[in-house]
């Protein structure tokens, strides 16, 4: 595409490569922001709190005989007239808030867990979902833009002696377009319904006997606004703390 820039700038308008550069920089910025920001990791329970919660659980369930694996610890809560089960996370020693999930790759519980994105190298959760969405949106716009202008270049230059590179570029653009635009469309659908990828895969809110999504406002615009423009809670990770010597339990 860089090679075409000069041609397109001369033939059509110099704004074309400039806009492409702006889009590219925006996509890179959102990518870096998604990769390096805290997705909403819930820190491990401090030993005092873990002990307190264990005590509470034992009080409700009674002690389990030695050798038997204790049953999964579940607490029931009601949200907007629907029962929601809260699961206990054995690794983090906390009761996970609703919509949180434990990521085995990051080994952390993440609030409003969406998925772990290998391309971004980070979990996508409450705090970085909007950056992730902006990243895939800008990437798909960039891909469409480059694809269109490649076609325009081929059409304008009227040279049917297409080089191997041009064909390769068009093919790569096409397949990237297909996957990235598809992903963007999928996430737009999720944002409109205020669902996470995790919930969609598990089918938490779909199906005949399942309850409706209690977090959706019913209105597409309201859902979009809440997910993309809502207030951003600060990170609760203690990045600068020094790890205390762990006592063996």
């Amino acid at each position, binding site marked *: 595409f860089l090679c075409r820039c000069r041609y397109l700038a001369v033939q059509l308008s110099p704004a074309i490569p400039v806009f492409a550069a702006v889009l590219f920089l925006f996509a890179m910025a959102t990518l870096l922001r998604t990769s390096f920001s805290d997705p909403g990791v819930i820190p491990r329970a401090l030993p005092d709190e873990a002990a307190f919660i264990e005590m509470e659980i034992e009080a409700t369930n009674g002690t389990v005989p030695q050798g038997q694996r204790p049953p999964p610890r579940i607490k029931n*809560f009601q*949200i907007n007239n629907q029962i929601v089960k809260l699961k206990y996370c054995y690794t983090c020693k906390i009761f996970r808030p*609703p919509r949180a999930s434990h990521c085995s790759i990051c080994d952390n519980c993440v609030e409003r867990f969406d998925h772990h994105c290998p391309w971004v190298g980070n979990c996508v959760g409450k705090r970085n979902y*909007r950056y992730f969405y902006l990243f895939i949106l800008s990437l798909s716009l960039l891909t469409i833009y480059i694809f269109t202008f490649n076609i325009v270049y081929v059409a304008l230059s009227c040279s049917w002696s297409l080089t191997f590179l041009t064909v390769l570029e068009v093919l790569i653009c096409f397949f990237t377009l297909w996957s990235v635009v598809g992903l963007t469309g999928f996430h737009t659908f999720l944002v409109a319904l205020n669902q996470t990828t995790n919930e969609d895969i598990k089918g938490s809110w779909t199906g005949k006997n399942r309850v409706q999504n209690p977090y959706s406002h019913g209105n597409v615009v309201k859902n979009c606004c809440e997910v993309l423009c809502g*207030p*951003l*809670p*600060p990170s609760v990770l203690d990045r600068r703390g020094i790890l205390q010597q762990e006592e063996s339990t």
Partner: protein
Amino acid sequence: ALQVHSLQELRRSASLATKVFVQRDYSDGTTCQFQTKFPPELESRIERHLFEETVKTLNGFYAEAEKIGGSSYLEGCLACTTAYFIFLCMETHYEKVLKKISKYIQEQNEKIYAPRGLL
């Protein structure tokens, strides 16, 4: 200054004491709210209504921080258009409310909880 100094001293001794944890209240969704249920350990240490009032006020503050309205949308959109550089100059609405919350907690600690040895 004398008050703050004594508060810090109390904090140091508090790390050796037993802790009571106030759990989250999820009845309103994933918003940050705390249960106003009175912990049995505090039965004889503090009046019930004082504790409940503290937690209710804190819940109100958190609800205000997470409130979705015209101003928070504007803040979000403005931040997006400036590629989030605007946060180098100003703090988010949430951070502003968090500052109010920590001031309130400090004040409650000084007035109500420290005199009862509940820091």
